[in-house]
């Protein structure tokens, strides 16, 4: 287990060996390539900026009643989730959707289950001001942070503009981009380590790209096409359709990445499936019965051994990130 410090060191050092992974970049499955990350300023953030974002991420000042931080729902000890089907909102009632995984968002193209945020900077601010979530007006947050010497100093040191709504988003996004999982047994397998995967996981990989059809949506370095599909889960959540005014996308949600997927139960946008076995059984029977289900979702005729092998492959995607929680400045 490594700290985020060492993780980020490896992350940036990864640039030096990027050429070796570039040959895999266009294959359906590949290792994450730092050269493909699109940074808002066209270059990686400074270490100090990441640290500032990390402190904000864990600071309960970001919620109306000081009761919760980003890490309350995205708890690093729980796979950056909270283990609940639906996290409690600011009024204690369950939110409308399951807390999504935030591993390897550096490569994301749109954010949230419905893709309503076009950038990570934009995404980072939305839960803070959302009444149902952290319920804190941005002006109040800026006042609170400005009152803290540590934040005043750090924002002024990192950004020409100092502490603004935009730079709060940039700091949080910089930290989230540093949450990179890229050293799983599967990554080592892709890098040529013939012993990285056991026989079950190897069979699971073959099923993942073959009979199991997982690759239809869970493709690329982070095992997601970052696209929107309706699995037939049902319910009245419009999903992507509400964001882009496209009725054919009603009930469609963004494919989640599968890195560290074993750590982030329960699953699906509504948190309705408690574990990976239930997810695989769901797909094996051809998804749900809800309206508008994607044609990509079909019965798979997987055997129990197939399912076990796929579970072994899911396990091979695990590369935990241990984060030392920062001291919250007074």
């Amino acid at each position, binding site marked *: 287990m490594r700290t985020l410090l060492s993780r980020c060191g490896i992350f940036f050092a990864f640039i030096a060996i*990027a*050429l070796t992974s*570039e040959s895999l970049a266009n294959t359906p499955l590949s290792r994450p390539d730092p*050269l*493909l990350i*699109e*940074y808002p*300023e*066209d*270059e990686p953030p400074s270490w100090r900026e990441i640290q500032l974002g990390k402190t904000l991420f864990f600071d309960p000042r970001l919620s109306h009643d000081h009761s919760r931080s980003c890490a309350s729902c995205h708890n690093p000890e729980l796979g950056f989730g909270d283990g609940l089907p639906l996290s409690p909102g600011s009024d204690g009632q369950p939110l409308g959707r399951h807390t999504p995984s935030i591993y390897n968002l550096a490569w994301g*193209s*749109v954010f949230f289950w419905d*893709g309503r945020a076009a950038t990570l900077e934009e995404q980072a601010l939305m839960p803070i001001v959302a009444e149902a979530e952290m319920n804190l007006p941005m002006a109040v947050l800026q006042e609170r942070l400005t009152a803290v010497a540590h934040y005043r100093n750090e924002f002024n040191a990192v950004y020409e503009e100092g502490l603004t709504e935009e730079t709060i988003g940039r700091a949080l996004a910089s930290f989230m981009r540093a949450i990179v999982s890229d050293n799983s047994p599967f990554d080592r397998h892709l890098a040529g380590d013939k012993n990285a995967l056991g026989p079950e996981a190897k069979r699971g990989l073959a099923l993942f790209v073959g009979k199991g059809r997982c690759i239809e949506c869970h493709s690329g370095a982070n095992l997601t*096409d*970052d*696209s*929107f599909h309706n699995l037939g889960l049902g319910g009245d959540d419009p999903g*992507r359709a509400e964001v*882009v*005014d*496209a009725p*054919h*996308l009603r009930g*469609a949600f963004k494919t989640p990445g599968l890195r560290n997927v074993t750590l982030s139960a329960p699953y699906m946008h509504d948190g309705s499936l408690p574990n990976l076995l239930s997810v695989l059984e769901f797909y094996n029977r051809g998804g749900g019965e809800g309206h508008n289900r994607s044609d990509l979702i079909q019965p798979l005729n997987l055997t129990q051994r197939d399912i076990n092998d796929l579970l072994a492959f899911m396990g091979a995607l695990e590369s935990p990130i241990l984060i030392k929680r920062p001291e919250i400045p007074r």
Partner: protein
Amino acid sequence: MYRFNTVYGGLLLSLLGLSPSVLAADYTVRLQFEKRPPKTALLYVPGDLGEQSQAVVDQVDKSFTESLVVAAPGQAVVFKNSDEVDHNIFANDMKSGARFDVGLMPPGGEKNIPVDWKADSLVRIGCKIHPKMRTYIAAVDAAYSKVMEFSSATSDYSISLEGVPDAAAQLLLRIPKYDPVVIDLNDPSTWTATLTKKGKTRGSFVLER
């Protein structure tokens, strides 16, 4: 890391009995990016040559086949789906007024969209289903154009511009999110420029003949 997409008046010159090489000039553009290069850019000479080839935006393997397409204002862009999955191309660019929705397009589909938005604009095109997909339409009248693609691993580029109409007065460089660069071809003192993005320096441009 760049490719040719030249549209110039060869046919017109041939009709006049002139060789294109007689009335054309060759240039070299050197681009240097200080940070991560953009994915694509367009160099073009403004001008109207009348009938131009149809602008086509196609899709294969959940990607657009072109990183940037030049379309003359007032004409139409043909959107095709040569992929194996449905797509839903759209644009929503407030600045240029480019707002269209091709709608759900199954494999084999095709639809014309008129370029009825602001001229001299560079508009991002996306897919509602697959947001990683990205291409651009440059709504410009171009007597000569060249689309370039850049690698994130390479910061220096030398690009040959062959057959630029000799009468061309201006050369424009358009890069998504960057500030436009306008070069006066009749004034070599303007042939060096700074590449800027929202006013911040991001690289340099040098034109040589």
